[in-house]
């Protein structure tokens, strides 16, 4: 590659600062890659700026053809915008592709977009659509397709559409659809997005798992009914809860073949063994699967012991054990008082939560829901662990006798972590009751429980989760956290394309989360996948994205 940016334009001015920071050791390699590639720098050039060679892709060691069987829950497909399980995306990723791809090293790579440019204050995005891409029904893939899909993403009225939350900058709040003049087709292969306000997360949003690009004849109820897409595979069979099979779409000339992107396997089988990991081990021992979708808890050791290879990545996937500030219990709102929340935070040692809840398979966090894996993370100290002070503070708030009920889902790590929190609160002298609910009923009221735990997935930028879960009035704001100053600062942060200037704002945001003791967010999870020896390209993805075309049998 001769060009340093995807479009061949000049480097974004912020890139120089990043290079200096990275060389001075202020910036980790992953942060550097996330920031520069989000600004349109090619990943090869980004590595080059650090004086490094881009690591060779596994392609050289891959064998053409073969079958791979993965243990994975097989769920019914639905409107891609409403996808709420990455497992669903793993199936339709066979024929539906993404505009941009987010990689585990933090970089954004071009996919259906050949390149993109962002202006300095992140209000104008120029998207250059890849040329020569064809839908598998023979139609050409053009800028109109991109514009159509983006405006569909902005439709807040569509049932379960979570993409609208990722595209908020483009959505007109009055009409609930894309703002007029925001999405413009400026050429047969170019789309320009004019944002009413700055937003730095747009490219990251386009790389997330519900952002699959579908054809205009798409059936929203069930993507299987009309499998028109740009990808290399097609579904052969899909039986919910049993098995889903993808096979190579023989008649379709996928654009990725010419680019050497992969799609080595001829057949990919996803086999459902339920939610009990011991059944997965049984399946592995019986040689009915080649790899797991995700290995959790004690089973990491078990899979290693049966000779499986391991892929681990420290991600921003996490759990929050949080009080809901607006929740009423017996006529009072116990957690509206900041002293009560502070007392809870002071009584819990996050290291203990990591050890007991997740077998030390992760990194301790600081209750701020922004971490070192995010480019704009600031080093804000956590609330000090002080169980005696916690009880004193709780007594001062007059809630020493109040019985806190902590709800969690009935599973392995989420239950254990919540138990660890409850046990520490009890040790500190709090009055605690634990309730465990089955998965089928837990999600009914997940945002409303007075005190409960929820898992949150990895997102590339720190401001993203804050916008989804901590902004006042958001649907997923399970904390019922409402703070005008926080919202203003968050808007401010979202207008700063440069992560260093954003960090200044982020420092304040993190400080607010700590001072207000909004939640306990004890650790960042390391996530694992295990595979039988003899496969390449199956590495666990930091955000569970379905890059199935990379998987191959080792040559």
């Amino acid at each position, binding site marked *: 590659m001769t060009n340093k940016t995807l479009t061949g334009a000049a480097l974004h001015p912020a890139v120089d600062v990043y290079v200096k920071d990275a060389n001075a050791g202020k910036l980790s390699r992953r942060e550097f890659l996330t920031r520069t590639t989000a600004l349109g720098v090619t990943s090869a050039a980004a590595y080059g700026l650090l004086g490094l060679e881009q690591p060779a892709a596994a392609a050289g060691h891959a064998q053409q053809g073969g079958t791979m069987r993965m243990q994975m829950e097989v769920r*019914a*497909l*639905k409107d891609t915008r*409403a996808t*709420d399980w990455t497992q669903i995306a793993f199936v339709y990723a066979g024929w539906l592709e993404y505009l941009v791809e987010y990689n585990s090293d933090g970089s954004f790579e071009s996919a259906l977009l050949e390149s993109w440019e962002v202006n300095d204050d992140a209000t104008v995005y120029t998207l250059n659509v890849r040329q020569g891409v064809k839908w598998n029904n023979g139609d050409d893939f053009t800028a109109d397709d991109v514009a159509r899909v983006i405006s569909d993403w902005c439709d807040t*009225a569509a*049932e*379960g*559409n*979570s993409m609208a939350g990722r595209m908020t900058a483009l959505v007109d709040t009055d009409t609930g659809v894309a703002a007029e003049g925001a999405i413009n087709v400026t050429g047969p292969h170019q789309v320009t997005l004019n944002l009413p306000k700055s937003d730095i997360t747009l490219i990251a949003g386009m790389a997330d798992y519900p952002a699959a690009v579908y054809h205009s004849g798409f059936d929203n109820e*069930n993507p299987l*009914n009309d499998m028109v897409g740009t990808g290399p595979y097609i579904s052969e069979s899909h*039986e*919910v*809860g*049993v098995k889903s099979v993808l096979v190579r779409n023989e008649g379709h000339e996928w654009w990725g073949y010419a680019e050497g992107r992969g799609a080595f396997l001829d057949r990919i089988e996803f*086999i*459902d*063994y*339920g939610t009990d990991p011991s*059944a997965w081990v*049984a*399946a592995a*021992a*019986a040689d*009915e699967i080649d790899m797991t979708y995700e290995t959790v808890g004690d089973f990491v050791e078990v899979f290693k012991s*049966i000779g499986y290879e391991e892929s681990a990545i420290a991600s921003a996937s996490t759990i929050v054990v949080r009080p809901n500030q607006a929740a009423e219990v017996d006529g009072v709102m116990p957690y509206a008082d900041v002293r009560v929340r502070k007392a809870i935070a002071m009584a819990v040692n996050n290291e203990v939560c990591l050890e007991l809840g997740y077998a030390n398979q992760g990194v301790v966090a600081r209750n701020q829901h922004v971490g070192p894996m995010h480019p704009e993370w600031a080093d804000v100290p956590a609330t000090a662990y002080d169980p005696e002070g916690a009880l004193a503070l709780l007594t001062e708030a007059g809630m020493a006798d109040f019985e806190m009920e902590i709800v969690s889902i009935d599973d392995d790590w989420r239950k254990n972590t919540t138990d660890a929190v409850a046990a520490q609160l009890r040790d500190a002298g709090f009055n605690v009751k634990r309730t465990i609910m*089955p*998965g*089928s*009923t837990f*999600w*009914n009221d*997940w*945002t409303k429980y007075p005190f409960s735990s929820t898992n949150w997935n990895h997102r590339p930028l720190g401001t993203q989760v804050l916008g989804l879960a901590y902004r006042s009035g958001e*649907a*997923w704001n399970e904390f019922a956290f409402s703070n005008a100053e926080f919202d203003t600062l968050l808007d401010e942060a979202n207008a700063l394309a440069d992560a260093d200037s954003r960090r200044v704002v982020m420092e304040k945001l993190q400080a607010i989360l700590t001072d207000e003791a909004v939640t306990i967010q004890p650790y960042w999870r390391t996530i694992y996948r295990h595979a039988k020896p003899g496969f390449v390209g199956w590495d666990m993805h930091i955000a569970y994205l379905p890059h199935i075309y990379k998987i191959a049998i080792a040559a």
Partner: protein
Amino acid sequence: MGLFILRRFGIMILTALCLTFIVFWLTNLYPKLEVLAKTQGNFRMSDEAVTTFLDNRGYTQALPIKYGQWLGVLPGYVIEGSDGETRARCELRGPPSDINPPLSRYCGIIQGNWGFSTVAKVEVSDVLPTRLANTGKLMFWVMLVMIPGALTIGVLAGMREGSKMDRSLSTVSIVSTATPEYVSGVILIALFATPLFGMQFFKGSAASAVDDANFNNFFLPVITIALYGMGYIARMTRASMTEVMTAQFVRTARLKGVSFRNIVMKHALRNALIAPFTVIMLQVPWLLNGVVIVETLFTYQGFGWELVRAASNNDIEMLLGISVISVFVVLMTQLISDIGYVFLNPRIRIS
């Protein structure tokens, strides 16, 4: 006899009606509908979105009306949704096929429409036959192992009451029948399907047995169910055998010098097998319990596995379909046992 069978069928329909109504009522409780909406839409949906979702799809109609629609005695709903789309209960769903009849006003179970599985996104009538066939295969092998095994153990134990053989066989059958499937299954998997004890002869997962059942992947699920039923039937056989062995006609035969072998084979056995026959037929509904546990444990996609999945996802019409079939199976086996009893024991006449 004809009247008797007719009456039995009447009871069967009545039971099916009552049971399905209870299932219908439980699955249509609002919190369960909320689960349904969230698994169908987005599991982090807001409350308003849940309400419109349910309204648009006819879930918020009155319970008797919904039940009538499912039965097919009331016309299916036609609702113009808040999103502008018109949805009808009787519309064509899923890919068109022979089983999918064209639009009609009534489309309930009476019209042969078993409904639509909201989880699997297919017609219930497409799924259940394959699941039943899988369970049928499992049950066939269970019966093949269980009945001869149980009868042999029972007869051997009952021949000479109180002998060493009786005591040891009785102990074995009591232990096996006192161990429920969810205990014996786990023990068997740990012993024979993991490398822990160096006896990894079988596979602990039966998912591949659906397409290709062999000794390796099918032995453990079969033996787990069979062991439980075997002990119980063996006990019954033993009891009936010991009773027959002390009967007057056996004593007479012995006094006349008939060999022990001939007494057992020719005189005792036929009389002793009347009771176990009824027990075996009545055991079938109990085995269905075991099927639920074992199929889930071994991920074998049969009837019981489908029941667990439908229940945990609140798949209303699938659960109802399963209930109808369960009622049918249970009452059919009772009917067969009643009729068979008459043929085995001529002293009984059904009025």
